[in-house]
């Protein structure tokens, strides 16, 4: 039991090392990939379009739940006017980046991993190598950058729609005063809160995109390999995102 655990721990650390080396290889190719922005725009569009609807829907529901729970909690202290602030801070600092990252990993991340894995399994990556085209530059880097850019935009959309959802429940159903909902939010949400959200969604975007392209690129060249790569993408992304979330939160509260 303990032995298995230690084995899998050392394997994870090894894989982490590999992933960081892969990141270095990607970053080295970023300058030359930027010279062909169209490839990157296509991938932003892909990653964004794939996830947009589920992120908007989830943002709405999460915001509505926040509206209900927040109202219930705050009215015990007679401070339901603070609902706007509570919802905005909860979404911008925490739920927006985290839930978006989890959904992004499940939708765009798995699509990336299986697309690249399938290119590996059908020799498309080797064919590029043979045509003297570096697949990391041509395939991996644009997809990585597309994900890195799309993720913060999606998180922002999630938070905005979430605030709207909280307002929907809090103001329209629970009859919190609309004026104080918005004005309290405006008065007490600080730049620091927004920064935390931006840093988190940027870091999660890098982590999720890196994990997806890494898993796809290094998948075994078989149907089974592609399946494993997509599963690992979701699981690894989820664990890493929650772990990084703790680190960044602690850093901002320090």
């Amino acid at each position, binding site marked *: 039991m303990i032995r298995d655990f230690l084995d899998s721990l050392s394997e994870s650390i090894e894989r982490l090392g590999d992933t960081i080396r892969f990141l270095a290889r990607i970053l080295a190719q970023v300058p030359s990939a930027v010279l062909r922005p169209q490839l990157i725009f296509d991938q932003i569009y892909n990653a964004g379009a794939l996830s947009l609807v589920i992120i908007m829907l989830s943002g709405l529901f999460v915001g509505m739940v926040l509206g209900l729970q927040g109202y219930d909690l705050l009215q015990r202290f007679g401070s339901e006017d603070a609902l706007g602030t509570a919802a905005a801070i909860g979404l911008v600092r925490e739920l927006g980046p985290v839930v978006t990252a989890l959904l992004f990993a499940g939708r765009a991340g798995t699509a990336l991993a299986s697309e690249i894995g*399938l*290119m590996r399994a*059908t*020799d*498309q990556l*080797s*064919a*590029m*190598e*043979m*045509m*003297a*085209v*570096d697949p990391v530059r*041509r395939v991996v880097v644009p997809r990585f950058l597309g994900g890195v850019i799309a993720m913060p935009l999606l998180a922002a959309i999630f938070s905005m729609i979430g605030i709207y959802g909280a307002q929907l429940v809090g103001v329209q159903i629970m009859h919190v005063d609309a004026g104080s909902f918005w004005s309290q939010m405006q008065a007490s949400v600080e730049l620091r809160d927004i920064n935390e959200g931006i840093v988190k969604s940027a870091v999660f975007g890098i982590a999720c995109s890196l994990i997806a392209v890494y898993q796809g690129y290094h998948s075994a060249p078989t149907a089974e390999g592609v399946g494993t790569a997509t599963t690992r993408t979701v699981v690894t992304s989820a664990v890493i995102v929650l772990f990084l979330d703790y680190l960044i939160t602690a850093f901002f509260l320090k």
Partner: protein
Amino acid sequence: MNATSPIIDLRDVRYSVGGRTIFDGLDMQVLRGQVTAVMGPSGTGKTTLLRLITGQATADSGSIDVAGVAVTRSSRSQLYAMRQRMGMLFQNGALLTDISVFENVAFPLREHTRLPERLIRHLVLTKLQSVGLRGAAGLMPAELSGGMARRVALARAIVMDPQILLYDEPFVGLDPISMGVILRLIRRFNDALGLTSIVVSHDVHEITAVADRVFLLSGGRVVAQGTPLELRDSPSDVVKQFVGGLADGPVPFHYPAPDYFEELLARDGGRFA
């Protein structure tokens, strides 16, 4: 340049992967301008051989020279420069699935040249015409049959005017007509474009019909070489087994296993997982 100087020269190559030795003491010289066939049972390392020649895999020891480039001692950028003078046809074509037939053939041109669109169009259409698929330019790879996909891949492989063309199992899974088409294209391109071709295959009859020279691989080395005629008349047991398609011989039918009867009668029932 001498018409019969080796353009690909492998000497005493050793290569192992995953604890298994695939090649040990492999020597092979491929002559310029010829169609060379490499035959051998599945799993002997024919694909691996092509990967060694193109520098996608690195030999443990020995030397590999391709058109004056020492593959085993070259950097990634030197290998990329060398590969621009080589074309390779993968077993299933390996077309890029997200772009059209036209764009697949145009891909190397767009990546490596800054030719005007009009010229790219001209080059792509002439190459597609030469494989008989100009009419398929607008199709997506998923819409092609196996034989068509391989012909498109062939057009893509010659679009940069390579000196060397490598084919990995170009006949597998093709109907007899498609097979004949590919066979004739191999010979025609080799002679008309002044190429050197290496064709990896285990289809003895097909390949000996076009090859100038044949190498037979087995057990990690070249066990026989010569013209197709020389091989057909060879007294060697391995060659006879392979050319004659005999199930058992020096290349055993059975994967190494414990004694048959003992295993069937074993009481404690050995497990296979």
